């Protein structure tokens, strides 16, 4: 890394000894970024924004929360009623979790469509899937903390997933609980881990960004950057674009926080936990519903758990399932159709996860689960062998500048965002 010559003498003095300013200049300012990124490329920085929001509000909530079965529910109610602006901070944290998942899900589907998981970005993708797993664990433990009915029974059902492991399952569950049921030891350890996990996520996010900056962003065309003519510096072009995206995101987020703060939650969680009474209809938070539908679709305990975790595991090996050399779905006519089918399938699974496990819903869950795995394990490997892809453009700059081979300074004025 080359050190910069900063004008400010203090900055120069520090940078000579500790090159943080050079580092930031290199990675956030001059960092060459493909010039054709569309708005779907905003979701990465939005996920970062969501993470920071969650950490800040979370630390504040921890100052007022009591991780004890006798006080947890009431301490949350106290935050909502008595603590100055406590309602605001909790509603931001509560809805922030949902919005974090919305952003990350879009981010993932962006990667799926444009083949961002393909060489040389396999590890970048795998780190991303790891972040998703950590987020799920964090969200699950956070949901337990208010100690409402859904908290308690969600914790019971999810920890019991581990009892499906042959031989050692029961011991693992008792170990997770620190007792013979979800109780005070469970609550206090979940609080400790819920506080820790975001920092683990932050560490993996840093690795994710290091891996990203190794080869730079993928782009809607899915072709490699050939040189300077294909890129623009990150600042001010993408900093301002990301900032604009952040404003749009925050507008939507704020509307949820202020006008529909409980829309994505479940009313039963405002009933204090009761270990002797399971609510008639327990559902996880909406972002777990597709996985929950897969769990319930399999009429066998261990099988259900394996398929549910398998739904994530298959994402880890995705770079080796889809062998097509063409990254972007734009140039893959058949893949494109299957992509939208997969998206529809995931939405269907999410809807089914919220329905009772009976009748037609069970049948549909099984079909949708089968399709999910069929897509990854059969469709993608076969497509990479048989699909006839469309011709790729010569380079990003020729495509952006209207496809003319003689794209010069004059046609540069026609440059438009490629969305």
């Amino acid at each position, binding site marked *: 890394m080359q050190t910069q010559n900063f004008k400010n003498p203090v900055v120069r003095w520090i940078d000579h000894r500790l090159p943080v300013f050079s580092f930031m200049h290199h990675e956030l300012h001059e960092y060459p970024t493909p010039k054709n990124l569309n708005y779907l490329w905003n979701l990465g920085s939005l996920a970062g924004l969501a993470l920071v929001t969650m950490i800040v509000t979370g630390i504040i909530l921890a100052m007022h929360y009591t991780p004890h079965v006798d006080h947890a529910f009431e301490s949350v109610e106290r935050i909502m009623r008595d603590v100055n602006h406590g309602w605001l901070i909790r509603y931001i944290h509560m809805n922030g979790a949902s919005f974090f998942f919305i952003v990350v899900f879009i981010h993932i589907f962006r990667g799926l469509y444009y083949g961002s998981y393909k060489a040389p970005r396999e590890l970048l993708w795998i780190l991303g899937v790891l972040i998703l797993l950590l987020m799920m664990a964090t969200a699950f433990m956070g949901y337990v903390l208010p100690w409402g009915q859904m908290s308690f029974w969600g914790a019971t059902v999810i920890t019991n997933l581990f009892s499906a492991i042959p031989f050692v399952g029961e011991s693992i569950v008792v170990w997770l609980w620190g007792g013979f049921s979800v109780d005070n030891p469970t609550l206090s350890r979940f609080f400790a881990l819920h506080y820790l996990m975001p920092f683990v996520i932050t560490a993996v996010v840093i690795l994710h960004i290091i891996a990203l900056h190794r080869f730079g962003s993928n782009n809607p065309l899915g072709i490699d950057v050939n040189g300077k003519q294909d890129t623009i510096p990150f600042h001010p072009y993408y900093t301002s674009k990301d900032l604009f995206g952040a404003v749009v995101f925050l507008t939507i987020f704020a509307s949820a926080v202020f006008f529909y703060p409980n829309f994505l939650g479940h009313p039963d969680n405002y009933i204090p936990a009761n270990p*002797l009474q*399971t609510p008639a209809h327990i559902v996880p938070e909406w972002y777990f519903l597709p996985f929950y539908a897969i769990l319930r679709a399999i009429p066998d305990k261990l099988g259900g758990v394996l398929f549910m975790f398998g739904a994530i595991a298959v994402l880890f090996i995705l770079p080796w399932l889809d062998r097509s050399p063409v990254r972007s779905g734009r140039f893959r006519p058949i893949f494109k159709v299957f992509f939208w089918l997969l998206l529809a399938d995931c939405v269907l699974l999410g809807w089914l996860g919220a329905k009772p496990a009976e009748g037609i819903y069970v049948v549909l869950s099984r079909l949708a689960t089968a399709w999910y795995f069929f897509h990854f394990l059969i469709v993608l490997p076969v497509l990479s062998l048989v699909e006839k892809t469309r011709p790729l453009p010569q380079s990003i700059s020729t495509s952006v500048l209207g496809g003319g081979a003689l794209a010069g300074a004059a046609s540069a004025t026609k440059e438009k965002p490629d969305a």
Partner: protein
Amino acid sequence: MSDTAENKGRRDFIVVATNTMMGVGAAAVAYPLINQMNPAADTLALASIEVDVSGIAEGQAITVKWRGKPVFIRHRTKDEIASANDTTIADLRDPQTDADRVQKPELLVIQGICTHLGCVPLGQKIGEVKGDFNGWFCPCHGSHYDTSGRIRKGPAPTNLEVPPYAFISDNVIKIG
């Protein structure tokens, strides 16, 4: 030190021995850090309760809390006992005779925890859904249990567990 074959062998031994001892040491440090999450002594101490079962009328059921979980105690009717006995054992997912699950046929004591993912099945109170086999029904993922608490239909792998209990007099049982 000279580089003879003998010295190389000695050095390899030292490296392997050091690494092994480091592994043993790491495991010794990790054990208490992991084991602390297991149930603590006070949690284990709360392990038994006594219940007077004389007040449960025929056809009635009560729920008591043992180790933080519900235990179902049902005074079964003659019909319920008959239907529990009138079952082809070979057809069961977790084959067990009714006699193996009770100490007195009229009194069924079982853990009220679905063996699938730990919800509390319905069927204790009058008016609750009892499932296709007139025992219990778990609303979470649709497991049906019969009048002996055996799994008959749905995702649960095993029968509702019978907790360790003993009659300490005709009317009182000790669970745990």
